[in-house]
């Protein structure tokens, strides 16, 4: 069975997108990304350190020919900075598929939806394929889809919190209304959270901290890989109905005492 993940003009076998932040070193980033069997990895854009410009770079370890590099706007708090950041990323690597996130404040890292919408409008008009991080709000998700974003990425819980899915019902509602892929981004803490997101119908999940902060990063990457696959298969297979009372698994006739 082919069950590819299509987003914009891109197509992937893997439904696990990984982040590249918080790793102790580049070798671990590389090992965990390989263990996850991810095909897409998101990266941040920052100033080159002018006092040490020759320092090794993450892309010396994560080969842009092998992986789809997804530049993001992590750390942007307004639309203008986000747009500038992604214009620079497109020039740096020719990457047109991007992750837009515009944050509201440093305590919650919740999206600033007003600025996110403004940035999305500009970026879509400039020909970017925008995967957009947002709240688990079905109305906003629909709006971002109407603007022309190629994927909508509602949070499960705040970035780096590892608290799982705060509102599974909203994830389901967003998925059922959407024509573009839905990616649960942020909040996944462990394998069961990833599986749950996929069982709800998410087209993919994006995970960074849960892998990078695991005691064994590569083992957690494999756990996430398997959880995403298991959750996806369970979604496609169609789960049994939930019942209030028991339903015997064995036939209720032919008992020896009858």
């Amino acid at each position, binding site marked *: 069975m082919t069950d590819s993940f299509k987003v914009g003009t891109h197509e992937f076998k893997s439904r696990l997108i990984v982040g590249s932040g918080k790793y102790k070193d580049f070798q671990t980033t590389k090992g965990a990304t390989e263990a996850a069997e991810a095909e897409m990895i998101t990266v941040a854009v920052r100033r080159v350190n002018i006092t040490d410009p020759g320092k090794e770079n993450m892309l010396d370890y994560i080969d842009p020919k092998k992986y789809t590099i997804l530049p993001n706007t992590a*750390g942007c708090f307004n639309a203008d900075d986000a747009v500038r950041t992604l214009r620079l990323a497109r020039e740096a690597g020719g990457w047109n598929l991007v992750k837009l996130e515009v944050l509201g404040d440093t305590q919650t890292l919740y999206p600033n939806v007003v600025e996110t919408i403004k940035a999305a409008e500009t970026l879509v008009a400039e020909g970017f394929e925008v995967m957009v991080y947002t709240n688990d709000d079905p109305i906003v998700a629909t709006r971002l889809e109407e603007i022309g974003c190629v994927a909508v990425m509602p949070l499960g819980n705040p970035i780096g919190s590892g608290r799982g899915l705060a509102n599974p019902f909203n994830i389901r509602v967003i998925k059922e209304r959407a024509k573009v892929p839905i990616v649960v981004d942020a909040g996944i803490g462990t394998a069961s959270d990833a599986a749950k997101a996929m069982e709800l119908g998410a087209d993919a999940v994006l995970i960074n901290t849960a892998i990078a902060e695991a005691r064994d990063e590569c083992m957690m990457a494999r756990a996430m890989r398997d959880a995403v696959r298991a959750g996806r298969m369970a979604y496609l297979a169609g789960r049994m109905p939930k019942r209030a009372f028991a339903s015997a698994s064995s036939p209720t006739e032919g008992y020896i005492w009858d």
Partner: protein
Amino acid sequence: MPKTIMIRLNGEEYSTGAATLAGLISELGLEQRMIAIERNLEVVPKSQYASTPLITGDRIELVHMIGGG
């Protein structure tokens, strides 16, 4: 003495002997790096590095990709 000018590079005052963006990249040893440059808030395409002059007071942002989520 080669002529030097002051620009603002990544938010800091920076003295350079380079006359163009291409010269600046070479001065920093970044020719082989995957970078992008913004000059006075406008992204400069790679194809124009050699023909883009550096002028005193230019605000240059020179970025690359790092780990992030």
